[in-house]
């Protein structure tokens, strides 16, 4: 039935129809206005809010599950990485400790080998030889006595004494490692001062030998003596380090 249809009706009926038509138009207008309003509202809500607020419960639960699984995975990853970090730090610490120990060893060896200057408690020995009777072996005895008493570093005159030091007497004058020495001889040794002193002055020891040759051996105990003479590090020509 069309609303454009015309009925040859009574006046009363015609007016009734018109009012119906007007009210119908009003209803249509209200409905379409509501539609426009709803469209704008929905478009705005859709574009403004993030996607989550439009999702259904099931989807949200799925997303939540995914996020939980992801968080679990990431937590696991964090734990693994922390373990790795700890392991690396441990090995780094061990490396540092090993290096420190090696450095200490190297320093100790440098002192013992005579490649580094040394300082510490010790004695200063002065040997006079007015009659020039002392031989190379007598002075070697002094050094041996000091070594035997635990001297860790010895300097004879201006020469650092080490394992390869040689006392020679090619022609009258005594030479230490080829450097000629003349009386009075001066020997500096680092070690326990008391022990060194006792070892040199032992009855029948080097002190008495020097005395019997007309010389004098005096020992001065010091809390700090400095040995500044150094040697170059010897490079072994034939021997190589062996693990056994």
């Amino acid at each position, binding site marked *: *039935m*069309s*609303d*454009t249809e015309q009925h040859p009706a009574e006046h009363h009926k015609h007016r009734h129809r018109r009012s119906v*038509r007007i009210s*119908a*138009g009003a*209803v*249509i*207008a*209200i*409905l*379409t*206005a*509501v*539609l*426009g*309003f*709803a*469209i*704008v*509202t*929905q478009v*705005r*809500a*859709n574009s403004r809010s993030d996607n989550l*607020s*439009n999702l*259904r419960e*099931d*989807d949200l639960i799925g997303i939540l599950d995914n996020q939980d699984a992801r968080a679990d995975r990431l937590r696991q990853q964090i734990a693994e990485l922390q373990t790795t970090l700890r392991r690396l730090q441990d090995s780094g610490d061990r490396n540092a400790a090993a290096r420190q120990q090696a450095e200490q060893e190297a320093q100790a060896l440098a002192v013992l080998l005579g490649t580094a200057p040394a300082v510490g408690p010790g004695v200063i020995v002065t040997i006079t030889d007015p009659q020039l009777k002392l031989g190379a072996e007598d002075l070697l005895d002094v050094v041996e006595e000091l070594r035997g008493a635990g001297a860790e570093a010895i300097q004879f005159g201006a020469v650092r004494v080490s394992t390869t030091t040689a006392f020679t007497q090619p022609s009258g004058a005594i030479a230490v490692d080829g450097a000629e020495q003349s009386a009075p001889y001066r020997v500096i040794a680092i070690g326990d001062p008391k022990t060194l002193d006792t070892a040199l002055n032992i009855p029948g020891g080097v002190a008495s030998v020097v005395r019997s040759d007309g010389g004098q051996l005096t020992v001065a105990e010091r809390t700090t003596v400095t040995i500044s003479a150094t040697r170059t590090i010897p490079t072994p020509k034939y021997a190589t380090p062996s693990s056994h």
Partner: protein
Amino acid sequence: MIAAFALIAGVVTGLIFRPTVPNWLEPYLPIAVVAALDAVFGGLRARLDGVFDAKVFVISFVSNVLVAALIVYLGDKLGVGSQLSTAVVVVLGIRIFGNAAAIRRHVFRA
């Protein structure tokens, strides 16, 4: 004509007041809008066909919206809300397309 003015008036009102969608209405509003659009397109086609009836339009508009909302509500309760929403949108979309085609034939004679 009055419907077009009312539509524009509604849009303008929405733009001015910037309403927020209440939570309980959120799942239904998009479906209701699509259903109402279907009714409007149907009414436009009927108008061009010369068979427009205000009563039919009003009833179809209201019932379309209510049925669409009811289907979505039922779907939510049954746990197939998203699927049913899609189904409703697809069906209404097909109808809108059909109506739009009829309107196009009327307007452009093609």
